């Protein structure tokens, strides 16, 4: 799967709503719980939506807060006020 993008987050309470939001918004994403971190892979594209995370978190969430729990990622980043997307653009 050469065209997979991935996002690795710390496995903690802050990251939980982000992971739930990714699960909801990315049908093809696979979520792998590893010691201390969570690896999320998706073919081609992965998006974290501000609205979804805010809903799961129960509070307003700023896309920049993603950085606080971010371990690693691969893919070209498209970041906006409302979403954070990873993809391999051709």
């Amino acid at each position, binding site marked *: 799967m050469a065209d997979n993008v991935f996002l690795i987050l710390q496995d903690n309470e802050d990251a*939980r709503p982000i992971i739930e939001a990714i699960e909801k918004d990315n049908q093809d994403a696979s979520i792998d719980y*590893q*010691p*201390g971190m969570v690896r999320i892979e998706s073919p081609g594209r992965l998006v974290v939506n501000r609205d979804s995370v805010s809903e799961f*978190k*129960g*509070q307003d969430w700023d896309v920049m807060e993603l950085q606080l729990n971010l371990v690693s990622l691969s893919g070209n980043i498209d970041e906006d006020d409302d979403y954070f997307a990873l993809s391999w653009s051709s």
Partner: protein
Amino acid sequence: MSLEISAKTIEPIRQTYDQVARHIGEGKPASRYQEATIGIQPTTNFHYRPLWDPEHEVYDESRTAIVMKNWYDFKDPRQFYYGAYTMARSKQQEVAESNYAFVEKRDQMESISHEVREKVRDFLVPLRHVEWGANMNNCAITDFGYGTAITQVTMFNAIDRLGLAQYISRIGLLVDGNETTSLESAKEAWLNDEVWQKLRHAVEDTFVLDDWFEIMVAQNVVMDGLIYPLMFERFIDELNHEDGATFAMLTEFMNDWYAETVRWTNALIKVTAKESPKNATLLAQWTNKWADRLTEALMPIGKAAFAGDGDVAVNEVKQQLLERLSKQGLDV
């Protein structure tokens, strides 16, 4: 000697408590909010029925006409459990305290005209008694209500109301340079002034409602849904036109608090109305009953507080409330 460091995954035997897993599905990690909420309500093995109400168990679903298959379907969109709630309020309190300190330090009150101060004394300070009533009502809901998903929120709400009443009292003290005259005159107005009597009557009638869900609708949905937009938004805006933003600063907490609480009441109404048509009908009945009663009660206050267009303001606020509730699935 070579040393190899490798990470080993240790699978937890269970992700969360059984009662939470039964609700959210096996094998999923649960949030703190879910763990602090789901399955907390005592349901069995009660010893005696209360002497003051032998018809019901100590905790009884049938104390309200609203029927829910699962009382944990009520979710607080803010996900407040004790920890999250206290942290959120402590942040807000820091902001509010610094606003009050600023007004005191810079002698902001000195520059406020006599007329505006009088208006604040007459129409803002008596609201501390309304907040106290709201505290009583939310305690009653917590007492008679069923299911932690609603009773924990109403308990937090009850405590909030004391805080709100205290902030209003502090506005009264600031206006008078720490004399209690405006607090006393506000109490006098609340008890005897014709303008406030209909509202006081309505507030006192909510104290003796039997159905805790009706108290919920009357207090947290309708009464707050009318008073907050009317007094803390529109009335304060009107003061701003006359005398700068001092009172907007001092009531910022009220507006933030209301905006946040509306998210909870909206979600609550939506879930309850969706559960069954019978619930929806009941909610609509209660809403109409209290919206009419309280609009009438607020009319004299609106007319006296707003220059000229008080009745328009009260009716607009009512219209907004009903529109918001019909979006949640109520036929009002």
